[in-house]
C-alpha cells in the first residue's frame, strides 16, 4: 500500500465516522421525546373535520395558522372560544387560519358544542389522539402559532384572551 493510499484510507475512515456519528447524534437528540418546540417544524396531521372532509396541515400551507387544541369539558378552552372566533373573523381575509383540534371526543359532542358557542372556524376531530401525541400536548388548551413556512413560532399553554391573541397573530403575520 502506497503512502497516498494510506492517507486516503485514513481520511475516508475518519469521514465515515463523522458522518455515521453525526447522524446518530442528530437523530437521537432530535428524535428523543419527539415534542415539537418553538422554532421546529410543525408536525403534519390528517384529521376528519366537522364538515365531513379530511384536513391536513399541508392544505393550509402559505397561511399563518393558529392551531388550538381543546375539549368541550375543559373550562378554559370553552372560555377562550369567543376570542378565537373573534380573531378568526378579524384575520381570515389576511392569510390567517384558525384551526381547532378537539382532543378525542365524539362527533356529536363536538358538533353540539360548536353549534352552542357559534364557532365557524374549521374544527377537526382527533378520536385516536394522534395529533395530540405528535404535538406532545399535555395541558388543554394549548395553542400553536405556526408561521407561513410551517415553523412553530410560539406555543401558548392555557387560556388566551383577546388582546394576547391579537398580539400573537400580528407577530405571526409579520414573521
Amino acid at each position: 500500500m502506497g503512502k497516498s493510499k494510506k492517507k486516503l484510507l485514513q481520511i475516508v475512515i475518519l469521514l465515515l465516522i463523522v458522518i455515521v456519528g453525526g447522524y446518530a447524534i442528530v437523530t437521537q437528540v432530535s428524535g428523543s421525546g419527539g415534542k415539537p418546540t418553538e422554532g421546529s417544524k410543525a408536525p403534519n396531521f390528517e384529521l376528519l373535520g366537522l364538515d365531513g372532509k379530511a384536513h391536513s396541515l399541508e392544505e393550509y400551507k402559505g397561511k399563518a395558522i393558529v392551531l388550538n387544541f381543546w375539549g368541550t369539558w375543559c373550562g378554559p378552552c370553552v372560555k377562550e372560544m369567543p376570542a378565537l372566533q373573534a380573531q378568526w373573523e378579524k384575520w381570515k381575509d389576511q392569510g390567517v387560519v384558525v384551526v381547532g383540534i378537539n382532543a378525542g371526543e365524539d362527533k356529536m359532542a363536538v358538533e353540539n358544542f360548536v353549534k352552542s358557542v357559534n364557532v365557524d372556524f374549521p374544527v377537526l376531530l382527533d378520536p385516536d389522539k394522534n395529533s395530540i401525541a405528535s404535538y406532545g400536548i399535555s395541558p388543554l388548551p394549548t395553542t400553536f402559532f405556526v408561521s407561513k413556512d410551517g415553523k412553530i413560532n410560539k406555543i401558548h399553554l392555557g387560556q388566551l384572551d383577546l388582546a394576547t391573541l391579537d398580539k400573537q397573530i400580528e407577530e405571526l403575520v409579520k414573521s
Partner: protein
Amino acid sequence: MLQKVIAFKNTKCECGHQNPVGTVLCENCGRPLDEEELKSKEVLEMRYDGMARRSQRANPNFIDRIWNFFASVKIAVYMIVLTLLGSMLGTIFPQENTFLNIDPSTYYKETYGTWGLIYYKLGLTHTYESWWFILLLVMIGASLVICSLDRVLPLYRALSKQQILKHMQFLTRQRVVYQGKIEGDAEEWVKQAAVPMKKKGYRVHTDGNALLAEKYRFSRWGPYVIHIGLIIFLLAVLARGLPGLKMDQHIAFPEGEIKHIPNTSYYLKNEKFTVEFYTEEDMPGEFRNQGKVLPKLFNTEATLYHCTADCDDPTKEPKLEAVAKHNIQVNDPMDYKGLKAYQFDYDLTPILRSVSPSLVDAKTGKELGKFKLDIKNPQRNYTAGDYSLELKEKYNDFGLDENGRPVTKTPNPNAPAFLFLIKGPNLPASGMQYIYFPKQIDKERFQQDAINEKMNGGTPPLMLDVKGMENVDFAMSTTYLNIRVDKVMPFIWIGAAIVMVGLVLGFYWQHRRIWLRIDDGVLTLGAHTNKNWFGIRREISAILKKMNLDVDEKSLDNGGKQA
C-alpha cells in the same frame, strides 16, 4: 517509550532492511533497532512482532493527530470509563421513558425533591438519549475501528512475510530459549527436526540452516474479530434512534374494541381478558390472611388486524384483515413479523358500552318500543314503536357548571347522560324533552326524575327504562399491552455472536512460533507464544527429545513476564 522510538530516526537495520519509524525489531531479521535496546539482555518486547503501528509517524499532520488520538488504547480506556460513569448517573433516578404518563418537568421535583429537580435540569432523566452519551458511544466506535486498523494491518504484514533466518539476539532474547551443541550435518538436522514439528501440527519453513515452525496463527485475529462484532453491536444500538426501527409503547385495549396501534398499519382487538387469582391456600404463608390479592394469570385473547386500504383517510373506515390470533400472557407475547405485544397491566373496571332501553308508558307501565343506544357513538335519531327520539345533547361525564348549566366534566364516560326530544302520539307537537342516565347510580345522584319533571312541568307521560341486565352491554375489563417493534435486535445478536467467535479464537488457541538456526554446530532455538508458555515449553522439550536432546522443560524458561 513512544517518544524515544519516534526520536530514533535511523531505521535502517544492519541486514540492509529499511524499517518504518517506530519499528522496535527489524521487520526482516528481528534485530532490536534501538542502540540501548541492543545492549540490553532483557527479554524482547514482542508486541505486534515489533512492528511500527500505523499511528507512529515522524511528523504527524492534523489528520494524523486525530488518527493517533483514537488509535491510543489509553484514550479508549478513558472513554470506556467515562461511558460507564455516565451510565451509572442514568441509574440514580428512574429514566423518563420508564413512565407511561408523567410530566417530567414537575414529576422529578415532586417525587425526589431538589435533587430530583437538579437531576432533571441536568438532562440526566434521559441520559441514554443525550448527545454526550451518544457522542461517547460514537467515539468508542471510532476508537475500536481505528485501534484495530492501526494494529491489524502492520501485524498482518509482519506475519505474512516472515524471515526464516533471524538475528541471533532475536532468538536468545525470546522467553523460551535453548542453546546447545548438535552433531552431524546442520542442514540434515534441520530437515529431521521438521518431522516431529509437523506431527505436532506446525507448519515448517526451512532455509538452509534455519527453520521457522508456526501454528494457530489465526488466533492472533481473535481480538480483531471481537472488535468487528463490537462495532456491529454498537452500530445496531445507534441505529435504534432511526425512525421505524424501534417502537415501545403502552396502549389500553378495552374488551371488544378494535384499536389502532399508532405509527403502524396494525389494529388490535382485545376479544376477552381474563385474570385468575391465587386462592388463600395457594399463597405462601407470609401472604395468607392479609387480604392480599395476587394474580396468578393474565390472559388477553387478542386478534391482530392489518389495514389493507383506506388506512390514512379519516373520512373512510379502514379495511382490516385479521392476520394473527394469540393468547397473550406474561412472558408469552404475540409476535407477528417483528411486532410484539406483551401483557403489561389490566384494569377490571367495567366500561358501559351500550344499553337497550325501552320506552315505557309511565302510567300503565306498557312497553312501547325499544332501541339500542351506543354510549360512545350514539346516533342522532332513534325510533321506538310509534315514537321518534332525537338525541339533542350528550354528556360523557355529566355535571353542572358554576352557572348551573349541564356540562361534561371529563372526556371519559364516567357518568353518561343523554338529552332526547321525543315526538309521537299523545305528545305535544313540539315534543317532550327527556334526560336519560343509563347508569342507575347517576340516575339517583343527579335526580333524573326531578330534572325531567322540571323540563316538562310535571311528571312526563313516558320514560326510558332498561328491562333486565340482558339489555346492558359492558366491556368487563381493559388490558394494557406493551407494543414493541425492534428490528435492530437481530443485528445485536449477530454482533454478539461474532464477539463470541473472536473470544473463542483468542482464548482456545495460541499462536506458537519456533525459530532455530545452527551456526558451527551450535543450535540456537527461540520460541514465542502469546499465552500458555508452559504448553510451548513442553512441546519443544518433546520435539528436542525426538532429536535425542534431553532438555528439561523448565530449563527452557528465559525469564520475563509470564502470561
